[in-house]
């Protein structure tokens, strides 16, 4: 029921929230020696979820280490420009998905009320 009501947007919101955590982790570890930045391939994870994978499975298979443009001497691969761009993109994606969900809820509400 839940899946058919919210469609792809429920899964997308879950993945966006998970990716927000991963990107925040990267930003938090900008000065940790040896830390390897990670990211979730969003479209890959979403594709896996639409094919029936669970959130954990989808994220597990779509999480990859970031390939740094210029690795630091201490082994840290966090590059702020990359992380902040990805973070902004993900935040906007989250908000867009949230709006889609809200619209869906409004539509169902309107149908229920028979306005």
């Amino acid at each position, binding site marked *: 029921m839940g899946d058919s009501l919210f469609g792809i947007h429920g899964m997308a919101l879950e993945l966006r929230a998970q990716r*927000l955590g991963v990107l*925040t982790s990267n930003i*938090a*570890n900008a000065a940790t020696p040896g830390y390897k930045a990670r990211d979730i391939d969003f479209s890959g994870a979403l594709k896996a979820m639409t094919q029936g994978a669970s959130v954990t499975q989808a994220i597990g298979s779509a999480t990859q280490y970031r390939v740094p443009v210029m690795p630091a001497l201490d082994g840290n691969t966090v590059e702020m420009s990359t992380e902040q761009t990805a973070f902004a993109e993900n*935040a906007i994606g989250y*908000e867009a998905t*949230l*709006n889609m969900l809200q619209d869906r809820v409004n539509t169902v509400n309107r149908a229920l009320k028979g306005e």
Partner: protein
Amino acid sequence: MSSSNSQGPMTLFDASARAMSAQLVRMNAAASNLANAGTVASSAQGAYRALRPVFATVLDKTTGIASVKVQGVYQSGASPVQLHDPDNPLADANGDVWSSGVDENAEMIEMTEASRQYQNVVEALQTAKQLTLDTMRMKTS
């Protein structure tokens, strides 16, 4: 640093708070180093050496969120500078004093970098907070 929020899975807010406190330790260390730049001692052992915190990742396996902690604060390997200053009251029998091994430029860079990274975490925290609030209220567009 502290493990005050060790119960339950780590949230974005826990991770940000830890990262901010770690960066604060870094800024305090840089401030201490700058404050002690140019201080002298009567022996090489007694001279001030720059303090440098080293961070380590704290991974919460249930949520996949990786935060950061201060693994330890270490003394820099930079050796104190021997100066000949017979008039100094701290001078030894040869008239030498040891000036603290602090590179002021390096400390300034450390301070700037720490404050920039602190700001980045604050911004990430603000965005995460706003998105969480939007989700709770399911804001009407």
